[in-house]
């Protein structure tokens, strides 16, 4: 006869295993979503770039002091980015991820290699933070915030 205590312990262990598996799956899905977004940007695939964007997303970037608001604003900005640059590759450095409930965070440093049409090649180093909300089992980006390292290093 299994005691009530043993049953409770088994249930607790089972719950911890399920929670940890679910967390691992959420984290893996978050990483995959982030990598797909960066890949789409670097491949200049506008449609794929928009696949995980929430309709009300907000972006603070390094090319303008003002926020970009909403999926349509983001689409226009990315289209201009693709049109203006002959070459643009965003490379995350030490990417990190965290899942807290139904919210996800991807952050790290980046190096952006760009070449304007008829312009010189340039490199920008900075920090990025994307935040996500889980919607119908899928991670969607609710914010992107980029900042350059230059003014922070004295």
């Amino acid at each position, binding site marked *: 006869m299994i005691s009530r205590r043993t049953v409770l312990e088994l249930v607790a262990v089972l719950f911890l295993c399920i929670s940890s598996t679910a967390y691992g799956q959420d984290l893996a899905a978050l990483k995959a979503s982030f990598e797909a977004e960066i890949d789409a940007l670097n491949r200049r695939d506008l449609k794929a770039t928009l696949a995980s964007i929430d309709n009300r997303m907000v972006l603070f970037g390094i090319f303008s002091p003002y926020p970009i608001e909403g999926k349509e604003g983001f689409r226009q900005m990315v289209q201009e980015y693709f049109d203006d640059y002959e070459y643009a590759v965003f490379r995350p450095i030490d990417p990190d991820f965290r899942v807290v409930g*139904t919210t996800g*965070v991807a952050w790290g440093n980046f190096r952006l290699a760009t070449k304007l049409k008829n312009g010189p090649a340039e490199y920008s180093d900075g920090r990025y*933070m994307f935040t996500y909300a889980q919607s119908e089992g899928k991670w969607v980006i609710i914010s992107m915030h980029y*900042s350059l390292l230059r003014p922070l290093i004295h």
Partner: protein
Amino acid sequence: MVYRRVGFLWAVVALLFASPAVRGDDLADLQAIFDKDIQLFNAHNKDAFVTSAHDDVVLFGILSPFATKGKEALQQLVQEYMNDHINVMFRLVNPEFFVAGTSALAWGSYTITEYPKVGPREIIHGRYTFTYTKTDGKWLLVALHLSPVPF
């Protein structure tokens, strides 16, 4: 049959009215937590942004190029900052909020006026995004990014 139909209609109407109210409450709660943190910060209170932070909070700030990870590290950072300054004033410019299920965002621009213990007064202009998650009915800060205005 008619009763079932009336019941169904009532349920639809109740849902239509209830959903925005719940969202409105969430938004009001979020704004209240954000406003309280700004008030605490301006009152030179070392609990600013700490009480509302999740244990796993992440911050990219303007004092360091590196990320601050975890509530304890955030608390230490706020304490050091308060210790180094006689007074600080965080003024919001066009603060905005939105709720997406159990995640939420507060964003906008800011001006911070710093009165350091050593050195002259400084005025910093920047942008912020604070991300929250709702845990056990409470909004908690999970990510903050503050950056100087480019240009």
